[in-house]
């Protein structure tokens, strides 16, 4: 299972119209990710990290080339099929946490399970397990406005992993956090990667994150300039 191919991009190109011109966000990107990786897309702002993450997450489609995620060609999915892929197999973690403001921590984590149609008992168990994992079982009834940044991001991690997704995509997950909270978040994600085998792909330029990655893919102006796996063949995240 360790080497099962999860994602493959072939000559992936993404351009955006800008005025009368086109901006190339991704320029012929060829990458493969396997199950259980703890990998990061690294690069400065505007290098195409988030664009690639969005395409892998079926939130966007390539202009040219192909992106195959869990055996599905992203460019040929309908809106409904893309939504189903995200719902069943992909978890997202955002820089700004993106918790639903009127829901409690419990309800936020429960949300993906509601979409999956799980029973109330199944949902409750899975949500409490996930909150336990991130150390926030005692804050289940708190609303996002009552949580700190670090706690909010841990709730977001719980929401991303509660359905046991094959893949978690994290876009600058520590950008809005201080060093201590970043450390805690990374530790949580590395544990999930190590113990549950969840695949994590980050888009980041945060050194704190980069230090813990087992695979580093450097993007510059939409091109992959470096793809480095740490020695030892072990792709799992290192616990900070």
């Amino acid at each position: 299972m360790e080497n099962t191919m999860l994602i493959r991009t072939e000559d992936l190109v993404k351009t955006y119209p800008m005025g009368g011109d086109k901006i190339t966000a991704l320029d012929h990107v060829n990458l493969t990710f396997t199950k259980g990786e703890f990998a990061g897309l690294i690069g400065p702002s505007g290098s195409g990290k988030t664009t690639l993450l969005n395409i892998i997450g079926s939130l966007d489609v390539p202009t040219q080339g192909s992106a195959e995620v869990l055996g599905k060609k992203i460019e040929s999915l309908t809106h409904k099929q893309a939504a189903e892929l995200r719902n069943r197999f992909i978890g997202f973690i955002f820089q700004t946490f993106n918790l639903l403001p009127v829901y409690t921590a419990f309800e936020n984590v429960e949300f993906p399970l509601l979409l999956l149609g799980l029973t109330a008992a199944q949902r409750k168990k899975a949500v409490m397990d996930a909150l336990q994992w991130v150390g926030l079982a005692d804050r289940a009834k708190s609303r996002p406005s009552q949580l700190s940044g670090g706690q909010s991001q841990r709730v977001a991690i719980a929401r991303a992993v509660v359905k046991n997704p094959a893949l978690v995509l994290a876009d600058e997950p520590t950008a809005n956090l201080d060093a201590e909270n970043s450390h805690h978040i990374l530790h949580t994600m590395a544990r999930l990667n190590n113990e549950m085998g969840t695949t994590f792909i980050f888009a980041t330029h945060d050194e704190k994150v980069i230090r813990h990655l087992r695979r580093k893919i450097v993007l510059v102006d939409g091109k992959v300039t470096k793809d480095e796996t740490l020695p030892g063949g072990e792709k799992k995240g290192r616990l900070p």
Partner: protein
Amino acid sequence: MIIPRLALRNLLGARIRTWLNVAVLSLSFVAIIIFQGFYRGLDEQGSKFKIESEYGGGQYWQQDYDAFDPLTLPDAHAKVPEALERLIQDGRAAAILVVQGTLYPNGRVMPVLIKGIDPGQKILTLPSFFLTLNGANVPALIGSRMAKSSGLRIGDTITLRWRETGGSFNALDLEITQVMNTTNPGIDNGQVWLPLEKLRSMTRMEGEANLVVLAKGVNEFPRIPGWTYKGLDTLLKDLKSMVQAKTVGGNILYTFLLLLAMLAIFDTQVLSIFKRRKEIGTLMALGMTRGAVIRLFTLEGALHGVLAALAGAAYGMPLAVFLMKKGWAMPQGTDSYGFALGNNLFPAYSAGLVIGTTVLVLTVTTIVSYLPTRKISKLKPTDALRGRIS
């Protein structure tokens, strides 16, 4: 079932914003039903009083009789036909003779309509039994409005002059035996009621009448030469037209109220979609389809209508029951518009009115809630997550 649950959760989570909209919408809701109830009450109450005191179950008019043209009166009388006479004898109809005359109250000249009616009739609620002859004077019955305008009171004697069929004028003294307090100005203003047979003999119109009022429940209306049947639809036409005119005014008012409420909801929806772009993006990222997000936002807006209906029922029902019991005091002079209403107007509510209003408000709320959400159908998840509107 997930979308209704989420919509309700979002709606209640928005707290003050939701309750402000619900308050405005429920006010419109209650106002529409209360106002419509009053217009229905106006119609029903006005019709009821008119039917009971003036129109009965329909009328036969002598073919030249025109209730709105006194100049036709000298020629608008005839012998009561046999078919109608039989109904009168059976107590299922009452003949009325109408003649022009003049009263002289306190030295003034006052043109009046003299109306003759059988003192024993039971067709109309008019208290005609006060017209029973029991002395030398001719008994006369007037209404309170007539009493006020003429200055006459019970027991007063007043000279009446009238024109006989031959054209000569005659006069006699009347004694006011009762001042009736009627809600129907149509049997009061400028009118004096006398015993039918006395009026016939005074005018030498034995056996004649201008109109015959049928009892309620009489449902045979044969064609009678020289006489025209006037059903309640015809007789109440003016009242219905007046109510209709009032209803149009009311409709404008509550359309305005509803528009205000809809504007608030539309505004909330537009603002909501604008403010919650990131949330929309997150919902999509979590696996909700655009269609589901549109349904969620539409339902959130539409649920304002449901909450408004519940809130409206909470305070509107006791208010409606109170008004049905106590009525609404009518300002003095309302009857001068021709409405036979009495001192209080009692609203009338029906299941149709409540259900119809509820369906109308919910439908309009849903449409207004849906319109801004169409923007979501063009929204890219990536733009939404960045807080942009495509």
